[in-house]
């Protein structure tokens, strides 16, 4: 199809869809409305289980099964990237030259690194209390590690980043989420039931029953997965090269 024809097709389809979507928008309940039946129920359920952050309660208790799927998607994507970005037969690794980094950048990166790492862990730990949780903290912590690439160089990053450990960590975190779910099945007859642990005192670190545990599992999974994803891409961008002379 020529570019012109495609453009016409897109514009026709887009225009039709636009009409449909706008008409639908005009029929949506107006923005800021007061009717949220599921939301209100979720808030009540969360408070009944002593989880201060309702979003965490929805993610790790009421709709924990969704989070199982979501975590599995991440796990699968990492496996997929490992497979897709592997070093193939016609490629070899070239050691990157140690890069010269401007001292201010280096100081800044090395200063921010521990702060970001601690922030990430803090955000994971307080998932059931304050905004944040496994996903956010995990991504922050994993991205923080990569400041080392800026601050020092790729080799330094590779030294503190034994990928095998992260791979095992990723898989173990994923399995511990399932195992916690299975414990619910054995302990109280339903999968992912949050009834094994006491709900604790509202607004403390140990409140919410299994919510903090699932949260921690997801945090670890996300952190390891993001490290692995970035590592694969860095590998490709920096190290892996096509064999010459084929």
């Amino acid at each position, binding site marked *: 199809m020529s570019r012109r024809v495609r453009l016409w097709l897109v514009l026709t389809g887009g225009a039709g869809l636009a009409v449909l979507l706008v008409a639908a928008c005009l029929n949506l309940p107006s923005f800021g409305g007061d009717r949220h039946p599921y*939301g209100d129920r979720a808030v009540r359920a*969360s408070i009944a289980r002593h989880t201060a952050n309702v979003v965490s309660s929805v993610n790790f208790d009421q709709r924990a099964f969704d989070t199982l799927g979501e975590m599995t*998607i991440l796990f699968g994507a990492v496996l997929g990237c490992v497979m897709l970005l592997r070093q193939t037969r016609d490629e070899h690794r070239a050691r990157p030259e140690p890069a010269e980094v401007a001292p201010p950048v280096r100081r800044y990166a090395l200063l921010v690194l521990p702060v970001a790492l601690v922030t990430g862990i803090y955000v994971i730990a307080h998932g059931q209390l304050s905004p944040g949780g496994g996903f956010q903290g995990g991504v922050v912590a994993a991205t923080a590690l990569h400041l080392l690439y800026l601050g020092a160089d790729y080799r330094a990053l590779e030294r503190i980043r034994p990928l095998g450990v992260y791979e095992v960590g990723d898989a173990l975190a994923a399995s511990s989420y399932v195992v916690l779910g299975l414990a619910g099945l054995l302990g109280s007859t339903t999968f992912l039931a949050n009834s094994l642990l006491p709900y604790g005192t509202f607004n403390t670190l140990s409140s919410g029953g299994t919510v903090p545990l699932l949260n921690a599992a997801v945090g670890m999974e996300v952190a390891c997965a993001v490290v692995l994803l970035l590592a694969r891409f860095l590998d490709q961008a920096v190290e892996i090269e096509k064999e010459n002379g084929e």
Partner: protein
Amino acid sequence: MTAVMHVLPYLVAAWVFLAGCYGLATSRNLIHAVGCLSVCQAATYVLLLGVGYRKDATAPVFSDIRPGSRPVVDPVVQALTLTDVVVGATVTALLLALVVQIAKRHGTVDPDELSELRG
């Protein structure tokens, strides 16, 4: 003002979605196309959170307010969006991995120049 306000977030979501689709279809670079796909996904975040918003309500976190003292916005859509954000990042990563391989095997990332599969 208010009449527009009632539908504005939804219209923005629809606009962003369609803009992303347009960019995806007319893209001349696969990396750009993946970027456009993540724009499409941003539309879903805006729609979901727009749907869950409640006027004069606060965030659904009770660490510093007493439960029941103030109305809160819908926490369920927030949880859904959170899931969606992570899913979006993984899909982007996987797509980019495929783009990297396309660049290696075809020597180009222009979809017009990929001609291995036809008819």
